[in-house]
């Protein structure tokens, strides 16, 4: 039986001190940003563009087709994760380069970047793991938390998860349409009209590029090139899905209710303190351990905890502060959830299958869920 670490419940003073320690780290990194960070991201972009050109070019040589697909897959992964996700978080806005600016960057998949920024930068990062507010808990189609009431529909949990993985870029593109709320009746179809336009525009451009123009340019190799491009997109989908699902679903990552997060008084009533926000980000996130290349390919989302603490700091900085963050978490009695990829993925798969069925609540590390210990004096 696995022992679950019960996270400490922090007093308001402890939360404040915790928040201040985090703020200090953030300020230190912000003040240090400069040449190295700029050179780094330019280097990644350079490699990504070269991989892309190589991938497209090698499609003209049938014997090199596997290499072409591999190169194109890698270029799409880099564009999606280390470049796209991080640039759109504003991590490189300080550079003043419009090509690396969060307001202007558009990434190489079917999801329009402005819609993604709304649901990710705002909704997901502000309401991380708050059930009922963070729509990334289950993405509207999966049951990923015990508190989500069970329904026979969820018997298909593993199937929906598999389909989402294969068609991940399409799932991400449709995320803002809030299909589950349309089905429930809490959202009207008309509200999606403007979003729909943006999605179709992006879909048209991507489909034209990957499935019509580049295949057509290779003449008689059209079917081979089309398949190659489709596989590259599929590879990126599978990789991104697995990294992202390991961010908040492995055991050790906790969810929260809205009420428990309103821990201090503000000008407009109860609000969440800055310390509690940091605390929720740590407990709600999970890291993946690995080598430097793995971290780059995951867009440093392998450092999900650090990313959720400091979403707008360049992701290359997360590895260098991870030991410090871990030490602070230990001092405050908070679990720093991490593990190798296969273990984290395994944990997520188990959860998807377990939650497909109704049943007993599994133990969590949330202090609110700590079992009441019955202290009975030993018999004399």
């Amino acid at each position: 039986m696995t022992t679950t670490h019960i996270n400490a419940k922090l007093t308001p003073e402890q939360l404040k001190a915790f928040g201040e320690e985090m703020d200090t780290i953030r300020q230190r990194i912000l003040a240090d940003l400069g040449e190295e960070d700029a050179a780094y991201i330019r280097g990644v972009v350079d490699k990504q563009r070269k991989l892309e050109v190589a991938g497209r070019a090698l499609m003209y040589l049938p014997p090199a087709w596997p290499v072409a697909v591999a190169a194109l897959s890698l270029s799409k992964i880099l564009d999606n994760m280390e470049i796209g996700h991080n640039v759109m978080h504003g991590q490189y806005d300080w550079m003043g380069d419009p090509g690396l600016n969060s307001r202007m960057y558009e990434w190489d998949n079917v999801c329009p970047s402005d819609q993604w920024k709304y649901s990710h930068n705002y909704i997901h990062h502000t309401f991380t793991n708050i059930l009922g507010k963070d729509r990334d808990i289950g993405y509207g189609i999966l049951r990923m938390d015990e508190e989500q009431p069970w329904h026979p529909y969820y018997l298909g949990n593993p199937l929906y998860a598999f389909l989402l993985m294969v068609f991940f870029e399409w799932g991400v593109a449709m995320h803002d349409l809030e299909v589950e709320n349309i089905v429930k009746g809490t959202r009207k179809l008309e509200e999606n009209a403007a979003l729909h336009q943006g999605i179709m525009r992006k879909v048209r451009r991507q489909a034209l590029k990957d499935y019509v123009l580049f295949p057509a340019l290779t003449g008689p190799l059209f079917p081979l090139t089309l398949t190659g491009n489709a596989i590259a997109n599929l590879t990126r989908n599978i990789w991104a899905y697995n990294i992202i699902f390991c961010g908040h679903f492995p055991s050790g990552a906790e969810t929260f209710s809205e009420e428990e997060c309103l821990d201090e008084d503000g000008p407009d009533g109860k609000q969440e303190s800055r310390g509690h926000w940091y605390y929720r980000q740590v407990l709600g996130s999970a890291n993946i351990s690995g080598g430097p290349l793995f971290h780059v390919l995951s867009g440093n989302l392998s450092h999900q905890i650090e990313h959720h603490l400091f979403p707008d700091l360049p992701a290359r900085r997360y590895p260098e502060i991870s030991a410090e963050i871990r030490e602070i978490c230990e001092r405050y009695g908070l679990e720093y959830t991490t593990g190798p990829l296969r273990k984290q993925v395994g944990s997520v798969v188990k959860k998807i299958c377990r939650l497909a069925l109704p049943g007993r609540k599994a133990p969590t590390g949330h202090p609110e869920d700590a079992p009441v210990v019955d202290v009975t004096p030993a018999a004399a």
Partner: protein
Amino acid sequence: MTIQRAVAQRILGSRTLAALTSPHGVDRYLELVNPMWAATEVRATVVDVVRETDDAAAPVATIRLQPTHTWRGHRAGQYVQVGVEVPGARRTTRCFSISSAESGPGEPFTITVRAHEEGLVSKYLVREAQPGLVVHLSQAEGEFTLTESPATPTNNHLLMISGGSGITPVMSQLRTLLRDGYDGKAGRRVTFLHYARSREDQIFAEELQRIAWADNGVTVHLRYGDDVFTEEGLRRLVPEYRDTDTWACGPAGMMELVLEAYAESPRLRTEYFKLGTRSLAAGEGSPEGDLAFTTSGKSAPNNGAPILEQAEALGLTPEFGCRMGICLTCTSRKSEGTVRNVLTGEESALPDEDIRICVSAPVGDCVIEI
């Protein structure tokens, strides 16, 4: 443009290439090969940097730029946004009036820059820029342009008033008129009135002297030191100044006096340089400064709250998200003024800066593009 250039431009700007390079665009791939290759963006290499004045504190230099063929040229009096990667790897962009005569597509032009103590870009361009440096450009912008050319048969009297580095756009206009055959023989006149801090601070001194002495219809009046702009001085020079087509460009103080003198005459065109905060007319200012929203035209005294809250109090509805400074939804442009980050206490007074209005509070006067 050569045939190869024309064909290249046709291909680079084509919709097919745009579709193939979607979503990043052709330029993102071209720049990896050669920064001077561009399909839609405009860049330039520095050809040379020539010192105009040698004031140790604030030297002035003319920088000649050779742009990419995507440069569409400029009309006399317009300005260009120049982006330079200053040390620290931050690309900073500032506006500079073009000092050379009208240019055509792909043609070189000059900017004449004074290196201000607080001017990141101006200091870099004047003191550090070497031939071969690549800078980023916008297309030429601005409405401060000549409304007539030597070709138009009018007997108009043109009046140009400038102070300090405000000489640059009107110099471009004067050079254009003279280059394109304006010789005063048709009875047209140009009065060029300039105010400089001292004789040593006079930019283009030699050239203006030559113009003054040449037999053309241009009269050059240079004033130094305490001989500052006054309405009487102007009236003595050009009695009918309110009915004369005038182009005025200079520091805020001088411009206020010019505006007062012209009293809403439609013949006056003005250009401002953003140096420090514009001073308010006496009696209008509030102790904490004023917060102005230029797009909606609303403003109010600053009460120290974050800009997002003050905008909402005025009935504006700027976009927002987390209201805690992490999601970037509320990012807006501050044209000028100082803001303080309410989370970190950090202050910033840079002009044309993108700020997160949910965590930025004004310190003194502030102008926001909302």
